[in-house]
């Protein structure tokens, strides 16, 4: 039951922003089983410019996003959430991601996508 930052310490140690995006994209690309997520309205995360779907399959939460970066960050969130304690899950918020240091990701998240993803995950 790792903290978010501990689980992704490799990302948090990177300094170059493009390197961080590369890492996030790479993470999303190998996440499984993204193609099993049903791309139906009930699984759609509202408010993303590109589409992002999230679904609970056999007890674990998975996502599929059209944006490579959003797919990456969403996969990180799902993977962390799947192993987190109930207490960690309850306390999880957008602020947990602040230390990644990617302002656009978070500003976008505050308005719509990532914030809504976190809210949706908590309902599954």
């Amino acid at each position, binding site marked *: 039951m790792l903290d978010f930052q501990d689980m992704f310490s490799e990302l948090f140690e990177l300094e*170059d*922003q*493009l390197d*961080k*995006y*590369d890492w996030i*994209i*790479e993470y999303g*690309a*190998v996440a499984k089983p993204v193609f099993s997520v049903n791309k139906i309205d009930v699984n759609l995360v509202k408010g993303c*410019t*590109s589409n992002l779907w999230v679904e609970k399959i056999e007890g674990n939460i998975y996502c599929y996003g*059209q*944006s*490579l*970066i*959003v797919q990456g960050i969403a996969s990180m969130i799902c993977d962390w959430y799947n192993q987190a304690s109930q207490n960690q899950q309850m306390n999880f918020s957008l602020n947990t991601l602040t230390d990644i240091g*990617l*302002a*656009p*990701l978070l500003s*976008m998240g505050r308005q719509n996508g990532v914030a809504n993803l976190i809210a949706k995950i908590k309902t599954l």
Partner: protein
Amino acid sequence: MRDYFPFFKRRQDITYLDSAATSQTLYTVAEDLRDFMLDHKSNAHRSGNSMGTWVDQKYHLSKELIGKWLNINHPEKRIVYNSGTTQGLNDATQMIMSAMPSGVVFIGIDSHHSLILPWTQSGNDKWKVVFIELDKDGRIDLNDLEAKMKLEPLAVSKVIAVNAVSNVLGLVNDLDAIKKIALDTASVTIIDASQIISKRQVNFSGFDFVAWSWHKVYGPMGLGCLLIDPIWLNFNPVRPGGGTVTSVSKDSVTWQTNSGKFESGTQNLAAISTLPKLVQWLIEHQNDIEVHDISLAKIINDQISLAQFTPTSKTDSGLLCLDPAVGTVEDYTMMLDAKNIMIRSGKLCAEPLITQISGHGLLRLSWGCYTTKQEIELALDSLGEIHARLSRHVQRAV
């Protein structure tokens, strides 16, 4: 012209290519805003003291200069201050609906939501909305407009509502031809000028309503203008209140006879106080601004033969939208931001058009009079690099 804009000295790290959303600020505007707040804050038209008179003078001088800039006679009867384009377009719609109980409005499909929604969401089902399609080049199709107008009975009230330049396509619509069609069909006209006003000298005479925001013209946030044909002074204000009247009794009112009739309440006087110097600067630099805009449009049209991006069209002015072949626009926007290149992406508040041309968000590069050729080239090079980077990820995933 870049030296007139302190932002570029203060933020040398930034490549700013989002001027269609908001422009950077002329130095006099920043100085005048500060001076107003620190030395001159007072109200116009009702103070009766020297500070109030100073504000009155700025208010009236600003309208005189806008008249000179746009070649408009009697600016005190034609220029209405408001909070921005959106308020101007909403007020124009409400004024028309209060003057004419029913009719048909013909709206360009390339319009911003702020031109569409006041009509489609008015709750007034006596006004029918008809969208005008674009021609093969992406400009308002005048044949489609005329054909659709002919389908409506002659006696029906008609409104033509179009933008001068689409905030997605950057194409200049043929306003002279639209004016002629309006004249021939006795139609009321509304022009959203927000994307053209900072770039080109346009003859706005003959249109009923022309709206723009000053924050896109190197000016302050929270201030717009609605240019009206003086005939509309014969109608009551849609937002009556302080400043719109000359006298009031318990059961009667005498409205102002100038455009102040439509400026209820205290206006954004801090912003208005910046206009005299800003508009004077625009008058002095209008030709250079126009030449620069045309030259950047040519450069970007010539250089955007990048195979990995599909431009929505060639551009005439101010902006270019691109549809990337790999990844989504969010990926590009975030990665450009990592290189301190500020662009905009998404559906650009023009979803009816976006639905027709792509169905998903686009990347938009937009420029101002301060933008350099090198900045455009840097952005195009960076887009190419990011495309290569994203393509590698996609290939590895496959």
